């Protein structure tokens, strides 16, 4: 399915692929609506939701503005807890460290709890190349893995898939026709994956938030796969984007209270796991080795710039769930890793504005994202800044058009000319609303809409 999405082509073409899939749009629309209203409802259970958002923003800013010190402390406390630490400047360094740890352990299988940063660094491909089978265990991530697709939403990877599609996928995988029922399908996944949890040599997870002063990694899931991945295999590797840090447990409490609510409207997810190194000698079970890989991969490019606030992101998905564009085109139209408003901001910053800056135009700057972000990232302002940085890389035609327009309209006679042209066209067309406009650029308006008509004719234009 994702073969239809060509990332070398303009956004408009990928959007068209999504727009033509009415079933997917319906499913995605329902899903994001439910999560969005859940978010709105659950925020009211906080005494002063706006104050908590503000607090969340300050917590995140505090940690980012002292990131070097906090990461240094994290390295100390994680090592004190018996964990191993690796700082990876690039995606390649990170992936090859994970692969080398997995290989050294002799593992042939790695069970994975969903982690967007591992998508970002192409970890599954690297593991597969090294002869280690990555097994996605988050149900949504498992579904897209079987389908050979990337996740289409940072929190709900399979949001674009219908129940029927999942039934077909699982029936094919299991070799027998399953009932088209969500409970049956989930039971299938549980039974199918159980042996992997219990036999895999390596468990790989992300990190929702690291607590620097406590040497603790906080991992949040609803399904229990995160706990299994970090408890059953003898070796655990946690991979985190370097900005995902808070200083202490008080700050973690604030972020967790925002994360669950922003995500799906829960006060807390089903499982909030606090990991403090490998198992203690007196403990019976747990991994004997626990590694933490901290990744930069161009995040440091945001520091000290007007984009720094984008690093506050706690990956809750609230902006995706409210975005009027996302609900129409869903994740693949943007990028295989990060989509929606936050994706449109960070993808150009991580991949280069000249490469992906167009994504920032996939927005009406309506500001809904900014209004719901639990840590108050000014997303619609950041999108505008990306557009500014991308402007020199837009097509020569676009730049020339804006220049001509601005030169004309910087003078009254230029504007008057435009008015005159309108009046002439109005007389010619009788001022009627027009279904088709055969004028450059304006013709794109009439792809799907009436043009209200030019003034100057008998008919007075109304919107």
């Amino acid at each position, binding site marked *: 399915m994702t073969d239809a999405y060509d990332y070398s082509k303009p*956004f*408009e073409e990928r*959007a*068209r692929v999504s*727009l033509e899939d009415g079933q997917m*749009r319906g499913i995605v629309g329902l899903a994001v609506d439910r999560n969005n209203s859940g978010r709105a409802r659950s925020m009211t259970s906080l005494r002063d939701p706006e104050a908590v958002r503000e607090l969340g923003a300050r917590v995140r800013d505090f940690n980012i503005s002292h990131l070097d010190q906090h990461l240094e402390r994290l390295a100390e406390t994680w090592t004190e807890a018996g964990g191993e630490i690796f700082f990876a400047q690039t995606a390649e360094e990170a992936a090859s460290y994970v692969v080398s740890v997995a290989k050294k352990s002799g593992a042939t299988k790695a069970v994975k709890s969903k982690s967007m940063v591992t998508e970002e660094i192409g970890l599954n491909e690297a593991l597969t190349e090294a002869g280690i089978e990555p097994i996605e265990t988050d149900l949504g991530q498992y579904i897209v893995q079987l389908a050979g697709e990337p996740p289409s939403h940072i929190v709900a990877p399979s949001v674009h898939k219908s129940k029927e599609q999942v039934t077909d996928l699982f029936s094919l995988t299991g070799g027998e026709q399953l009932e088209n029922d969500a409970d049956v399908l989930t039971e299938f996944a549980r039974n199918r994956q159980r042996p992997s949890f219990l036999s895999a040599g390596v468990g790989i997870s992300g990190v929702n938030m690291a607590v620097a002063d406590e040497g603790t990694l906080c991992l949040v899931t609803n399904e229990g796969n995160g706990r299994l991945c970090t408890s059953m295999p003898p070796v655990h590797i946690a991979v985190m984007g370097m900005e995902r840090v808070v200083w202490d447990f008080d700050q973690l409490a604030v972020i967790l209270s925002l994360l669950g609510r922003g995500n799906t409207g829960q006060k807390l997810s089903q499982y909030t796991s606090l990991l403090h190194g490998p198992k203690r000698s007196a403990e019976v079970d747990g991994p004997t080795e626990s590694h933490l890989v901290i990744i930069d991969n161009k995040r440091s490019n945001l520091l000290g710039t007007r984009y720094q606030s984008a690093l506050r992101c706690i990956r809750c998905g609230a902006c995706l769930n409210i975005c*009027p*564009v996302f609900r*129409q*085109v869903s994740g693949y139209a943007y990028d295989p890793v990060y989509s929606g408003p936050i994706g449109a901001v960070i993808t150009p910053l991580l991949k280069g504005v000249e490469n992906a800056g167009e994504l*920032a*135009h*996939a*927005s*009406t*700057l*309506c*500001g*809904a994202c900014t*209004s719901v972000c639990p840590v108050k990232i000014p997303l619609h302002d950041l999108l*505008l800044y*990306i*557009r*500014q*940085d*991308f*402007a020199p890389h*837009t097509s020569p035609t676009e*730049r020339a058009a*804006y*220049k001509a*327009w*601005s*030169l004309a*309209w*910087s*003078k*009254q006679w230029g*504007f*008057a000319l435009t*008015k005159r042209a*309108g009046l002439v066209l109005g007389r010619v067309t009788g001022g009627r*609303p027009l279904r088709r406009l055969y004028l450059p*650029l*304006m013709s*794109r*308006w009439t*792809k*799907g*809409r*009436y*043009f*209200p*008509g*030019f*003034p100057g004719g008998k008919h*007075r*234009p*109304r*919107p």
Partner: protein
Amino acid sequence: MPSHQDRSRRVTLFPTCLGTLLFPGASAAAERVLEAAGATVTSVEEDLCCGQPAWNSGHVKDALRVAERALDALAEAEEIVACSGSCTAMVSHYWVELFEGTPRAAEAERVARRTHEFSSYVAGELGVDNLGPLKTSRPRRVAYHDSCHMLRGLGISDEPRRLLAAVEGLEIQGLTAQDRCCGFGGTFSIRFPELSSAMADEKVDDVTEHEAEELVASDLGCLMQICGRARARSHDFSCRYIAEVLDEAMPQRIQ
């Protein structure tokens, strides 16, 4: 003209480029309503644009070139009322950023502070009661669409509703996805016409599902978008800029 009303509010009307080019009736109605509510309205000689089309596309120099002429014309105005939520947001919110670092930054900031959106000015500054008894000759069910810049950018949602509620004969109908963007987004509507139309579809369906006969908004761009799409799908609800609704409902004045 003898009047018990206080005519000391001097307002410069900013019709916006859409108003000037396509919907002169909208700004003419706005002028009449402002006068009726007690303002003395002057128009600027020149036709102005706030620079938003280029600003929103990231072409800052181009935006500045155009906005400077608007700044020239508005620099001395006491108060400015714009016939658009998005143009008001551009001037009152973004001009400071646009003109930052230029010799005209302080001037731009002054104009920004003096610029108001039409409905918030009439209801908030002048008072809807000043308009006298409002009664429409076409009783109908209307839905109001909040434009994004006005709702989230300026925080204005109350005033237009107060104005509409004051009109006898109007039944105000709420929409399901009241806050959702209509998909206009200025040049977005031309960059991604299919996506933009798909977004408009949700608004059109919302209006027709609630059987509203008319859609009212404070942004001409949104009206053009939703109604342009509605027409293409053969729906016939009418669309009006808010000033036109009030204008039609005002007691007739002898000129």
